[in-house]
């Protein structure tokens, strides 16, 4: 790994973590939705970090994001679920795994058909977040399983859609700006 690459990894990790903290702390990261509970897009920085710079970066952003949501749940709780987010198994562990699954899917499809990789990786990453957080809430006996299933369908799927849409727009825009010399995504943006 060249040194520029390593510096870039460090900086992107820090900046993306900062975005997820800002999205959470300013409540910009919550999109109002029909079901009453808001959709969250705070995990989008983890997905973008994992796709742009690899699994380690994604997992570290996830770790920082998780720790901050734990801290925020305890220091300035805003809703009933914050009671359970003080448990690191709910707030930290699932977020670390987002980076991993996103990157795995991205790598699996990257060489075959890039558009598929760019579309499917954020979807899978976002579903990882929803499924694991809700699963952990279920294991911690926070919510009844039936309710969790409903939330998964009513919030999880649109959340995955929203996260994927934002990640795709950001990645396509960013990659085609041309700060990197050669971008494989250039052909995506020719309309």
């Amino acid at each position, binding site marked *: 790994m060249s*040194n*520029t690459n*390593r*510096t*870039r990894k*460090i*900086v*992107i*990790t*820090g*900046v*993306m*973590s*900062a*975005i997820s*903290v*800002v999205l959470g*702390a*300013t409540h*910009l990261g919550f*999109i*109002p*939705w*029909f079901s009453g509970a808001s959709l969250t*897009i705070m995990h*989008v*920085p983890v997905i*973008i970090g994992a796709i742009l710079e690899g699994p380690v970066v994604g997992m*570290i952003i996830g770790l*920082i994001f998780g720790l*901050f949501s*734990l*801290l*925020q749940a*305890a*220091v*300035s*709780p*805003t*809703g*009933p679920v*914050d*009671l359970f987010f*003080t*448990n*690191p198994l709910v707030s930290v562990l699932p977020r670390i795994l987002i980076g991993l699954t996103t990157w795995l899917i991205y790598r699996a499809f990257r060489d075959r058909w890039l558009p598929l990789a760019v579309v499917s990786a954020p979807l899978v990453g976002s579903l990882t977040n929803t499924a694991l957080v809700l699963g952990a809430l279920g294991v911690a*006996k926070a*919510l*009844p399983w039936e309710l969790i299933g409903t939330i998964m369908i009513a919030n999880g799927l649109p959340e995955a859609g929203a996260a994927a*849409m*934002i990640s795709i*727009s*950001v990645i396509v*825009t*960013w990659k085609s700006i041309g*700060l990197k010399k050669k971008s494989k995504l250039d052909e995506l943006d020719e309309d």
Partner: protein
Amino acid sequence: MSQFDFSSNLSLGQYEPLDTPVHRLVPALKMLSVILLGSAVLFSPLFPQLLLLFLFFCLIGWMGNLKIRYLMKGIRPILPFLLLIGVIQIFFISRQLEGDPLFSVWIFKIYREDLFFTARLFARFFCLVLLLSIFTSVTPVTEISHGTEALLKPFGRKQALAHDMSLVVTITFRFIPILAREAEHITKAQASRGASFGTWNMGLLKKIRLYIPLIIPLFIAALERSEILVEAMESRCYEAGARRTRLDEFHWKFADWMVLFLIIVIFSVLFLSRIL
């Protein structure tokens, strides 16, 4: 205009600049204590361990010259929700129960286990709230990056990992206010072009569509800034993984070793009381 004011609404705990024995501890020790005591809270049963831990945290808060009521004030807005959670926990979550219900009202039955479970849940929550509030009150941001480096040193093969992580933490903290201001600018810019933030009485779909021109420029601006930062660091000959020194060094004093010993003893006693 208050709805545009993102940077002043950041709610992540407040550092109290005081000079007390708790504030003077080495940062790595503060973080290690939070990790150990926090995990102790998560596996401790209700009585007497959680109660004792709560009193111990109150003692730390008192030594740090912090008001317990001030530390717990974050909970106040969610108290009604907590009541709701309590009701759900007691009545709607089915567990494998032994014995007869304690008492029953109409079709609702209250079991001993349910009550205990709910009480333990709340006790854990209050303990963690107190612990983390104390931590954010006594630890400034710079100490957190110092502490990260010190704690990760044993794991880094060439000492580089620890330094990289502490730099990541520093960049994160430095960028939080910058990006909050950036978000504020973007919101204002969109509002001045006619986007109706602030008047939230509109259809939901319209509301959702408002978010796209907010979030995506925020990400792009952040990525641009990070690219500029990389260039700035490189042009100043920053070399990732190189050995470097610190402006402030924290030295472990006798009191720090004593506190470390005390915390480890408390942790082991709680752990042993759980498994024995």
